[in-house]
């Protein structure tokens, strides 16, 4: 059975961020991926310089219009994933275009809308703050079923600073009050000097669970890591009938860690050095074998539930 997803994120010619980090892993898992590119850059800015342009509002609008002319979004797409957008105008267009086409009747088939609210990392915004209210609007729309923020992004969206498990719980409660989103994954949360991957799933209104896995941290910054994470989560989310679970999160965390390890090892080997603090290009292609195996058994016994 074929499965189809619309991915709206950045394009770079070289390296693996945005759609370049999402499209191939999804395709390799059997997805037909329709891709709208929100940028047309040579490479991501982490290289120190880049060329190219963000996709204009007119072109983004046109691409949506063109697509609407040939496919029925509700019938065609199992999922829509939205990631990096260069400015608030383009993000608002994406919101308007999707809102206009998605079935508002809850009993009818429509795609799962997965949002990676790309705002920044480690206390630093890398988009205009004007993007924030639009993400809040999107999350409140009732169409979004899964979000994949990092800790910083989740703090902004819930207006809750996370320092310990009490504030983690508080942030999820706030997210529920504000947005009523049923599935949330935070790729990495720092509590007492330890990194955790944290998941939240609410099958019914007041019936939710919060679970976490400790992450073995590689002390290195990997560009595109969040985009790859979102793609991996989306695929497993689909496999588990659109419910987030410890098995889903565990599998993704193991895969991601294996890919980062391989990337790291290839990087130091290529450069002939003993360590690096940053890797600009994930080795997604040479890690393709990792994308297919089920790794949840390797980690599932390390899950903790937050009461």
């Amino acid at each position: 059975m074929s499965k189809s997803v619309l991915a709206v994120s950045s394009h770079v010619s070289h390296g693996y961020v945005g759609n370049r980090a999402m499209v191939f892993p999804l395709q390799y898992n059997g997805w037909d991926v329709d891709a709208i590119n929100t940028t047309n850059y040579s490479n991501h800015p982490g290289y120190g310089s880049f060329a190219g342009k963000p996709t204009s509002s007119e072109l983004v609008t046109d691409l949506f219009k063109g697509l609407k002319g040939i496919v029925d979004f509700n019938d065609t797409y199992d999922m829509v994933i939205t990631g990096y957008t260069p400015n608030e105008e383009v993000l608002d267009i994406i919101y308007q275009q999707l809102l206009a086409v998605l079935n508002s009747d809850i009993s009818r088939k429509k795609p799962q809308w997965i949002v990676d609210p790309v705002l920044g990392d480690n206390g630093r915004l890398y988009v205009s703050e004007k993007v924030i209210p639009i993400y809040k609007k999107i999350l409140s729309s009732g169409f979004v079923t899964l979000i994949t923020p990092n800790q910083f992004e989740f703090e902004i969206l819930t207006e809750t600073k996370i320092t310990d498990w009490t504030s983690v719980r508080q942030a999820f409660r706030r997210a529920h009050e504000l947005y009523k989103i049923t599935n949330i994954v935070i790729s990495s949360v720092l509590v007492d000097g330890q990194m955790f991957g944290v998941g939240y799933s609410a099958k019914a209104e007041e019936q939710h669970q919060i679970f976490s896995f400790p992450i073995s941290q590689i002390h290195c910054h990997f560009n595109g890591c969040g985009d790859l994470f979102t793609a991996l989560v989306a695929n497993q989310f689909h496999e588990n009938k659109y419910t987030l679970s410890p098995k889903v999160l565990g599998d993704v965390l193991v895969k991601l860690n294996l890919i980062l390890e391989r990337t790291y090892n290839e990087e130091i080997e290529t450069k002939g050095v003993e360590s690096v603090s940053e890797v600009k290009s994930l080795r997604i292609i040479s890690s393709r074998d990792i994308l297919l195996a089920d790794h949840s058994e390797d980690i599932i016994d390390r899950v903790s539930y937050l009461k």
Partner: protein
Amino acid sequence: MSKSVLSIQSHVAHGYVGGKAAIFPLQTQGWDVDNINTVEFSNHTGYGSFKGSAIDAKNELQPILDQLLHKLELSYEAIITGYIPNSELIALISDYVRQFKQKNKSTLYLLDPVMGDNNYLYVDESCVEQYKKILQLDIVDIITPNQFELELIVGYKITNGATLQKAIHTLHSQYNIKYVVITSLGAEAVSHQDSSTESEKIYCAISVQSSPQIQLFRIPVIKSYFTGVGDLFSALLLDKLYTNLQLSEDNSHALSRSVSQVLTIMSKTLKLTHSLALQEYNKFAGKSSSSLVGKINDGDTMKFFELRIIQARKFYDYMDDGEFQPTLLDSEHI
């Protein structure tokens, strides 16, 4: 060992032509594919309606190529170019391919001079002259025109085996191209007669510069309309030829083996595409039909005819001898 290729061709949000038909198969074979999109379209033009625009040469494409070549100082094992919508972009791209090849002499450049098919030109006429200029730069290693594109390049019709041989000879001798693959030829082009008596047959002709003999493969005709077939063919050819050239000293054998493998993969992919299209079309139309012929410019049926690039993943690593045996272009007939 990782290998990298720069792919410059079209991007469509939906469907499988240009980069969407070429990139994924290359990635599954371990290629890190850097890609520049010459256009950003919602879908290919066969649907009758589409939206989008071409990349701007001076303000967008040139800075990106400059960045890759000079700032990031990238070097590629291979470069592949496909659909480019206008002559200004063709000129710019060829100049940068020349510079990339200057930096790394072993870079293998595959040029698919996408201009048209079946006597129909789907780019501006100025592109024809611009492609001829590229050929004079002595940078093309592999060329994959169809019969119509070959005719545009050499400036005369291929009406029989003699004119075919003359045209291929021109590509080798005048333009110094090592590997020539004419992706589809009518039966008349390989016969000694000018008349077409075997219109149901299509051929693929190949030739290497170092060996004078043209080899022919007969290709099965699948009666329905698919787009992106040429783009997939070129991508697979690049991968197989690159691999086979490392395994064999004999260039002629490497090319013929590669083409046989590519045709085998194409045949499997088209069969899969056809059977899935038929299944889905019957479901859509609520009837069971055993034949399916796509109509160009018909949005309702076109969506069933997209190549199943993703579902065909298991075919791309095929490395056996191939199911296609070449024959020699009969010299008695020329």
